């Protein structure tokens, strides 16, 4: 995983998997970078082929932190693959996340 500073936007790229083994580190790293004046966080899920319930938990934690502690930082999830998109829909989390679908690539 890499964090890319694009001025107002913090982009998280190169996320291969988000599981119980790495989701805590992922969450903490992104949360630590948020207070640096970003208006938007974009998490690029185009390379992500696996997310489990802990991975989803980390995304929710980032979303909660962005809206409550760092003022009004928007969180955007980019281009999830179909199985991952299916997870968001199944858990109805697509309602709280702004998801940019792959067709918009």
């Amino acid at each position: 995983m890499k964090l890319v500073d694009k001025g107002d936007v913090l982009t998280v790229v190169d996320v291969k998997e988000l599981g119980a083994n790495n989701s805590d580190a992922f969450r903490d790293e992104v949360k630590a970078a948020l207070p640096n004046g970003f208006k938007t966080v974009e998490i690029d899920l185009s390379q992500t082929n696996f997310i489990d319930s802990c991975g989803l938990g980390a995304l929710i934690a980032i979303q909660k932190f962005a809206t409550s502690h760092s003022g009004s930082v928007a969180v955007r999830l980019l281009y999830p693959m179909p199985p991952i998109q299916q997870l968001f829909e199944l858990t109805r989390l697509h309602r709280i996340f702004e998801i940019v679908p792959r067709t918009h690539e």
Partner: protein
Amino acid sequence: MSEPRAKSSACAQFRYALPCELAEVPSARRAVRRFLTEQGLHEEELAACELALAEACNNAIQNVREGGNLHPVEIAVLCTDSKVEICVNDRTPGFEWPDQVDLPDMNSERGRGLFFIQSFMDTAQYYRGKNENSLVMRKMRCHQEHRQASAAASVGEMQARLEETQDALSDMARELCFRTESLSAIFRCSSGMGRGKNLPELAQQLLNDLLHITSADWFVLRHVRETEQHLAAFAASDGLDVSRPLSLASASIEVQAALARRDLSFGPNCPLSKTDPLGATGQRAVGVVRPILAGGDLAGTLAIGRSVSSEPFTAAQAKVIQTFADFLGIQLVNARLCEEQISTKLLAHELDIARNIQRSLLPRSLPQLRHFGVAGYCESANQVGGDFYDVLQLSDNSLLLVVADVMGKGVPAALFAAILHSLVRALPEWTQRPAEMLARLNWHMYEELSSVDMFVTAQIALINAKKSQITVASAGHCPVLVAQPNIPGVKRIAPEGMPLGILPTTQFIEEVHEIRAPCRVLLHTDGLTEAPDVTASARAQQWLERWVKESLSRERTAQQLRDELADELRKAQSAMPLKDDQTFLIVAENQLDDAGTG
């Protein structure tokens, strides 16, 4: 982590031991995914199984019970044409699987694992066990492309599968045969036991069967008793000299296995030391020593091996050896308990006999003099000893008082007391002098007593009322106590003399003292003043003497005094249980004309 192994057939299995760490979960997931991909699962099914497996593993690791993380999380995957079954064993405290798994609040960061398992798998069952729980998840296979592939399998492949199945079947048949032989050997042994055959003989027979079943050619069965510090041979195959017991401090492999309480193997890679008693089985010997435990205690060891072939035992043969050793362990302990029960019963019976003999020696009534009354008391300790007393009337004016204590307990002591009793009764025909009587008793009994390393202490007192004299001779016995108003304190009459049975001929000394009414004379055994240490014993002696002296101030018959002293002794016993017999004869002046009985 154990190596994943796969078997390719219509029903394929895969096992994976996942170390109990979250960082290891991705490797497990990928390994299972690879296996299921080989089985032709569709991508959608693969993703579902992978996610469900990850959730199950996360639960097993995140909630593991203390100490449970030392064990791997066992994953078993079974794949058939129609379904995939994934079983994950966890060592968590477990939980009740809800009938319906609902989604948590949208903002909750946790609580979606079960929901995923239930959503992506067709069934999920959670079995709770004492130490381990099992989650079994099944997914039906809907995408059937793989079936066509399987139908197209070549004849060659079918042939290979058939051979594999035949191999498996013959393995199973061999194992079945093995188990049947083991069971029948154990049944034969059990039925022999029922017919009352002795254990060494049965163990020999059972272990000969074991040699046959495991293709071994020698064995040594040793046992150890709680109180012993060595392993003694119980049974061994012919031609092995194992008669010398092994000290538990020795370095032999049998002792090492016994102390470590685990199986120790030996063979070409791990040879026996040159001095090991099992070294006689040959340079190329292979084998194993198994400690035999019963209820956690070491009962012995079983060593079994091959001296001709150097092929080690197979896992199945090792299992049979373990079973036989465990079975023998139970039998050894049972036999030992049986032996103990019998010896306890025998001992109780022996004590009954001794008690009866001792009781029969005590006179039912005691002769009395006109001026002096006499009463006797004898209380046996739990372990019957050889105390006895007797009173013989020699004339109208004289009484012979005898108190003796045969060293030792049980039947032998009681028998010597009986012999002594008969001899004492015959003595007055020979002599009426206490010292001569003791010398004669010693002369009669020396040979028998010394041959069994026993001895007798005795005291003979002759009271002559006409002469107002008491004549005392003692064979290593405690002093006669005499109290009279005209003498201060208590007189201890203890003429020198060896106990009976120490020297073949012994001279005894007599002491003659005056006694006049009122007076108290006490002959007793050392059981009256027995105490745990010398100081306490001296205190008990002082107490006894004080009691004798003070009794002078009370007008009492000998019988009343006997009862009073017996009461005092019983009171003292309530603080400390009786270890030795207590016997005494007490003489007091007659207050009344009628003479009492003893």
